[in-house]
């Protein structure tokens, strides 16, 4: 995709293919010889882990769709049938439902890693933007998927989220009706959500393709945030990063399997094992854990429209990060001040998630959580719109190393290697 190709067809057949459709060349250049900074740490293995998660979700999802019935009267029963009567149906469903949580766990680590090492900064803005787009598509897919079992949380979650659109002045209620295909969440809604839930993962896969393509133009950023200057700074992707990614992927799968086999309902809500009932509202309607920070923002604002704007703005903000950060140094390793604000943001997001999981009128240490959520939302916005631009201008970064090779191998080894 970029740089000089080192592929040489070995046989007549490979030569014949290469002149017509150079797919083996593409694979060779992107997955084998691709020059990768030699200092990538554990946090850089999550890109590969995410690709694995997407593949797992698609494969288990296709199998589940063979047995699932998208009908408001039959959906709940069909899921129970998968769990009880379909051969290894319980395994497919638990891998799929826990897989969504694992996918989001990995994507949050991946995003915070990008944020910490400044991976969104020039020339990698489009990689970041495509990544945020994937994240947005993931949220939509997960939301549609959560509706499909047609339990109480499915139904009421769908009702709450689709009702957000009715906050739009004048046309809102019409948009909500249009989304439902009815005058409330019902069979028509379930069917279109199933259709979209099946469609979106393939769109995600396509955007992942663009994300990786864009990555292969400038190459990986790295924990030092400095550019690759010489071949000494890099290692070929294979075998160095294939083996490293495989090892960490295996550790990740152990955690994944721990949930699937020993705590399969850990991330779930017992209410979703009660069939949807439009006449009985659960006392607390909570989304899945990965959407809780945004839900907390939404609920902390009394005005519905403003709540929707604040929540939507929190995601739109992510698209603008490449231009909100004014620092000339990429990595927080050399940004003593920004590093502290970064970790405060991580804690802030966890606090928001906690607030989102509690009932609306809950309090912690005598402080109403709605106020905690408000303060946490203010910090979230302040981080991106004030701290990022200002700290980038006033902070004095630490001295950057001369090169990746010098930092990894030490002065003498780097000099000797040259």
């Amino acid at each position, binding site marked *: 995709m970029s740089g000089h190709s080192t592929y040489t067809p070995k046989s007549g057949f490979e030569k014949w293919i290469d002149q017509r459709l150079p797919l083996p060349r593409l694979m060779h250049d992107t997955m084998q010889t691709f020059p990768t900074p*030699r200092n990538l740490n554990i946090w850089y293995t999550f890109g590969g882990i995410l690709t694995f998660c997407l593949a797992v979700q698609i494969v288990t999802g296709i199998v589940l769709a063979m047995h699932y019935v998208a009908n408001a009267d039959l959906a709940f029963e069909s899921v*129970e049938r998968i*769990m*009880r009567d379909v051969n290894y149906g*319980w*395994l497919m469903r*638990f891998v799929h439902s826990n897989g969504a949580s694992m996918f989001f766990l990995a994507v949050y680590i991946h995003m915070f890693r990008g944020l910490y090492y400044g991976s969104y900064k020039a020339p990698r803005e489009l990689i970041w933007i495509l990544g945020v787009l994937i994240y947005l598509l993931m949220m939509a897919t997960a939301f549609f998927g959560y509706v499909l079992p047609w339990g109480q949380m499915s139904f009421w979650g769908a009702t709450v989220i689709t009702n957000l659109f009715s906050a739009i002045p004048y046309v809102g209620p019409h948009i909500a009706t249009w989304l439902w295909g009815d005058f409330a969440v019902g069979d028509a809604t379930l069917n279109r959500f199933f259709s979209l839930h099946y469609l979106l993962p393939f769109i995600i896969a396509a955007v992942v393709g663009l994300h990786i393509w864009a990555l292969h133009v400038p190459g990986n950023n790295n924990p030092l945030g400095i550019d690759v200057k010489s071949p000494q700074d890099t*290692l070929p992707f294979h*075998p*160095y990063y294939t*083996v*490293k990614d*495989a*090892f960490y992927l*295996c*550790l990740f*799968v*152990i955690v994944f*399997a*721990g949930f*699937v*086999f*020993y705590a*399969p*309902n850990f991330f779930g809500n*017992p*209410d979703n*094992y*009660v069939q949807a009932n439009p006449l009985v509202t659960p*006392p607390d309607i909570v989304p899945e854990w990965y959407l809780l920070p945004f839900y907390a923002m939404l609920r902390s604002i009394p005005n519905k429209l403003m709540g929707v704007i604040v929540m939507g703005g929190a995601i739109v903000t992510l698209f603008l990060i490449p231009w909100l950060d004014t620092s000339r140094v990429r990595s927080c390793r050399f940004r003593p001040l920004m590093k502290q604000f970064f970790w405060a943001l991580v804690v802030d997001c966890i606090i928001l998630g906690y607030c989102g999981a509690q*009932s609306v*009128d809950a309090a912690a240490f005598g402080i109403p959580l709605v106020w905690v959520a408000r303060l946490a939302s203010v910090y979230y916005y302040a981080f991106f719109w004030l701290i990022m631009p200002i700290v980038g201008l006033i902070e004095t970064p630490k001295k950057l190393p001369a090169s990746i090779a010098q930092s*990894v*191998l030490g002065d003498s080894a780097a000099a000797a290697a040259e």
Partner: protein
Amino acid sequence: MAAPASAIDTTRLPLKPVDFSFEGPFGTYDRGALQRGFQVYKEVCSTCHNLDHIAFRNLADEGGPGFSEAQAKAIALGYKVPADPNDKGEVFDERGVRLTRAAALADYFPGPFPNEQAARANNGGALPPDLSMIVKGREGGAHYVYSILTGFHETPPPGFTVTAGKYYNPYFEGWNISMPNTALTDKAVTFTDGTPATIDQEAHDVATFLAWASDPKMEERKRMGFGVIIFLLVLSGLLFAAYRKVWKSAH
């Protein structure tokens, strides 16, 4: 929960601490408890509650109560299910009564009432929930079922008046439950294996049975998980060795 200043807080009490054989990564269902629990369901709970997702064949499934296929068949024969149209195409007899036939292994447990309205009419307007989903459909699972069943005998605190037609049970949200306090009592059943039928024993056993009814694949799941995780640990070891070897010269 913000309650009105005059009312007392009727949030459900913390569930009773009780041990179940199926807890923990290696826990399995106690077969004896499953069979006794089934007896409690059959002789007591099934008067009002459905067991919708359990078929008679499930009683003989691996990881279940451990009845033989012949025993499960015999249990099925004791139940009547709605019959298919007879050779005249009728599903009601001349008196308008629904035609029935003896249940077979493939049939699901029939509920006590023909429909939701009949169930409500017989239970003071309340709908007894389906028990085949109760353990995974409630926060606290089997502990919740056990606490509710053994939580009736406590007397309400001063200031709390039980609503007419309801019963006091502090393990139920709001403390007013429609299930009568006489639903499960000491000696409600006579266990065929001679186990003393205290209410604690009955509640414990039926909670175990209902845990199985909610999660019949649990034993298979834990067993497979053990193999999968051992495999992954070995694979991780191999990958780690490969990783160290490949990277030895790189830093």
